């Protein structure tokens, strides 16, 4: 029984890791820093923001009685921006380092009372707001953090390999329990393909069932997280996770098919050698 549950757990873990990876990647594509000073909200974007995106962001923030809005590029007025804004912050060097890395800023001025609401509005579009101080400090303290996505991918890969081994082991156990059938079929003149096909069918079926069960379980978990985050924690998680979840479901099925086929082939080879 444990053997049969293990692949489901493994599949859920792999999928969870993949979701986490895409979550991290998606988050990193958005706002990587924001500064607040008085009634000013300044957002720093990692990449060049398209005109369409700019319009979208401005529309989002328009309803919060803007006093002033201004897109600043590095070339134009980085120095002005720093002089004006960083004067109120203690650790100018840190902010300077961070801001030098990114190409574009939005300086948006709104009344103090509406600033929090504006931030919440942005998070609905999936913009990850993080203070420059936190980000720089974290990177300074633990430079390896930037390797997290890579580590997650590597971990997924290792888990996938383990899953293949577990699939293969279970298939081999199944083959052993039905060994007499394959032996008799072999004795009666079955071709290699006639023996391999039922094994492959079994492997694929088992892999797809595993994928479906893990899909269902993870859906439930993500739904719970979504509900929880919407109410209490962080709206961004609620926005991003389900999107990743659905996007990855087909990928999960494809991975399962691949794993099933590979495991079947390995189990078949092992069975052939045992004859």
């Amino acid at each position, binding site marked *: 029984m444990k053997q049969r549950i293990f692949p489901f757990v493994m599949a859920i873990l792999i999928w969870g890791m993949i979701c986490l990876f895409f979550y991290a990647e998606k988050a990193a594509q958005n706002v990587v820093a924001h500064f607040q000073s008085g009634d000013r909200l300044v957002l720093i974007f990692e990449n060049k923001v398209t005109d369409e995106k700019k319009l979208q962001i401005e529309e989002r923030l328009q309803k919060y009685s803007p006093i002033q809005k201004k897109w600043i590029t590095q070339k134009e007025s980085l120095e002005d921006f720093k002089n004006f804004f960083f004067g109120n912050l203690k650790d100018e060097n840190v902010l300077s380092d961070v801001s030098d890395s990114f190409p574009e800023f939005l300086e948006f001025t709104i009344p103090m009372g509406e600033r929090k609401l504006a931030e919440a509005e942005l998070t609905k579009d999936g913009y990850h707001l993080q203070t420059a101080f936190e980000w720089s400090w974290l990177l300074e303290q633990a430079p390896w953090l930037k390797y997290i996505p890579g580590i997650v991918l590597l971990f997924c890969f290792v888990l996938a390999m383990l899953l293949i081994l577990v699939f293969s082991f279970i298939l081999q156990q199944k083959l052993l329990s*039905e060994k*007499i*059938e394959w*032996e*008799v*079929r*072999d*004795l*009666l*003149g*079955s*071709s*290699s393909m*006639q023996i391999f096909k039922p094994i492959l069918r079994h492997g694929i079926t088992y892999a797809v069932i595993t994928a479906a069960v893990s899909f269902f379980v993870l859906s439930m978990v993500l739904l719970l997280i979504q509900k929880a985050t919407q109410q209490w924690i962080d709206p961004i998680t609620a926005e991003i996770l389900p999107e990743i979840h659905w996007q990855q479901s087909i990928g999960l099925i494809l991975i399962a098919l691949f794993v099933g086929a590979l495991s079947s082939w390995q189990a078949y080879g092992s069975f052939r050698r045992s004859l």
Partner: protein
Amino acid sequence: MIELSHLYKTYPGPTHALRNISLQIKQGEFVFLTGPSGAGKTTLFRMITGLDQPTSGKIQILGNEFSNITRKDKALFRRQIGVVFQDFRLIPFRTIFENIELPLKIAGDSKSDIATKVQAALESVGMWEWRDQLPLQLSGGEQQRVAIARALIHSPQLLIADEPTGNVDPSQSNKIIDLFENACALGTTVLIATHDQSLVTRKNKRTLKLEAGSLTETSTQVEASA
């Protein structure tokens, strides 16, 4: 049909299971292979069915030279033979019908053909009524009859049977041998390993005797009128 020359089989130990076996069996012959337990009958059968390789010597059956036979050719060869194993080799989790139809399915026969042939084969051994039972629900003798039906269902060119009458009473034993003789009359070469000396004497067929891995005696059939 079957040609073995200077066949040796040695297992680690060393145990000499077969020593210098040379024999020829022609198409349509009916041959008994006798000998005490451990004489090498089953080993010889394993060689003939391609389940085991000889240590040295040459095996040629139905035009196939076993020393360089490919997996594909071996599969095709096995479709031309019928084998009754001492332990029957019935698949325990498949019904009698499913066990019997296996050679036909492997050969790619149509469903209607399979249904017709399975019924005929099971009726010939008196097991049609048990078609939906599992092998373990049958007695040893009944399982043996099912195994024989499976070996004969695809009208093989060569039939090899290891102790096919070992678990049945004398009347059933005669019926089984009659089935083999009928198959032989239709052109199937039959090779039967048996301990039953009375059966061998009664049927008066060509007999090979194996003793301690050596073919010590070869007697040819004597005309009944002689």
